[in-house]
């Protein structure tokens, strides 16, 4: 094939690909179309209208762990939420326990009603990161967001609310021997289930001092 025709063909293919690959808009029009997203406001709204009312549907942690040991698939199907199809899934849980230890980063709790030999659970009080609470609720649809940054910012703001509203009043009072009622989110790996090292990202914490 002669070189000019080859170059012409190449140029046509390139132009076709480019035309079907990208599109251009004025940035201010795009931004106006998708009004600046207020992640903090969204998180506040979500917290008050969906998350806290949704805590009534949280599964009891003792019951969940018992079911996970006998009917793992059913338990995951019934109570877990996650984005995509990975093995990491999130549960909204509740429970009561006696504080076994208080450290800088977490509070270790022995669950009331847990069987003999059951390990303590850990309530995170310092490192509140990740998407556990956002995803465990199952109440946020990612398709409602125009971009992933907004979606991730919601998670960051929810974690910030936990750090500001939930943890400080709890952390300032809690001590060994206290009876604690908690609601929160946990992360479990469906394929490699570890039930002896559960960390709870708290949403609600109450202390009943003896």
């Amino acid at each position: 094939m002669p070189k000019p025709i080859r170059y012409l063909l190449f140029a046509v293919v390139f132009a076709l690909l480019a035309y079907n690959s990208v599109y251009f808009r004025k940035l201010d029009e795009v931004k106006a179309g998708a009004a600046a997203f207020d992640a903090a406001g969204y998180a506040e709204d979500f917290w008050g209208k969906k998350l806290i009312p949704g805590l009534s549907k949280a599964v009891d942690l003792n019951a969940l762990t018992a079911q996970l040991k006998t009917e793992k698939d059913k338990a995951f199907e019934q109570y877990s939420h996650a984005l995509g199809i990975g093995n990491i899934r999130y549960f909204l849980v509740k429970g009561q326990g006696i504080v076994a230890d208080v450290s800088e980063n977490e509070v270790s709790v022995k669950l009331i009603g847990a069987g003999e030999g059951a390990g303590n659970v850990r309530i995170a009080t310092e490192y509140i990161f990740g998407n556990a609470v956002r995803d465990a609720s199952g109440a946020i649809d990612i398709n409602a967001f125009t971009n992933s940054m907004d979606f991730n910012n919601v998670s960051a703001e929810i974690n910030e609310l936990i750090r500001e509203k939930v943890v400080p009043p709890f952390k300032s009072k809690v001590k060994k021997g206290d009876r604690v009622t908690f609601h929160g989110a946990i992360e479990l790996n469906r394929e490699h289930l570890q039930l002896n090292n559960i960390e709870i990202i708290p949403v609600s914490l109450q202390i009943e001092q003896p």
Partner: protein
Amino acid sequence: MPIAYSRKNFARFQSLIALFLLCLALSVLSDKFLSFSNLWNVMRQISVNICISVGMTLIVLTAGIDLSVGSVLALCGAITAGLLKNGIELPSQNLYIGFTVLGAILAGGLTGSALGAFNGWAITRFNVPPFVATLAMLTVARGLTMLWTGGFPISGLGDTFLFIGTGWFLGIPVPVWISIVVVALAVFLTDKTRIGRYIYAIGGNESASRLSGINVNRVKIIVYTIAGALAAVGGIMVTSRLDSAQPNAGISYELDSIAAVVIGGTSLSGGRGSILGTVQGAIIIGVLNNGLVLLNVSPFWQQVVKGLVILLAVIIDKSNGKNE
């Protein structure tokens, strides 16, 4: 003579025999293994490793190695997802560049090709051992992935894009079709083209190839570029299947890929091996991974078993080399 003949035949079919025995054992040990849904799931997962391993085979045939494929896979998946979801904003120009699914996929593919080409260039231009150059790229690409994603997954990529990783065409999962096309093109490249013969020649004896007029550096750069592009294909498939670009995707994929190549009979010293052998190796690794999960083997033991299988494959490869 008959002993030598039968030994040669055994060497040719050893990975097929291993695969058959593995499937037989798993079908006895787990009633889920032979289920339709499990087998298609395995095929979907294997498709990614096949794409990466085909590229790895071309590199290993030239007596090279590429440790960066897992990180390149993650970066290309993230670039594709990021462009598709967020586009590019140029505030100084008041311009927003949006990407269609085609555009995002091309950008991901070009990124993989460019990183592969850079690997090849660094190896040939500065005479850096492939192990070191691609190890450096492993870190660079992972760091770039973290920078691009901010450490967060990029999710919600739309139904059209999801079709690549989760769709079906003519009753077969789309990723399987993609891997079939990749394998067919690679077989054609290695068996029917001049550059395919050069790849074997360079792996067999690089100095002799250079003296006989082969542009060794050019061939190596092409091979690493192809491997980078195929890692990108794998990244796009993984991202589509999960509807999410994960910043830590692809970790240790290079090991599965090298394992597939070695188990498939390609010599790590170059010049000997085949694409179809690698496909068999990738299927063995995929079935082994699946079987260990079905049998509830601890993930820590899974790594031990996979490591031992790779070691065994290399020992058998060495033994075959001696016999030849």
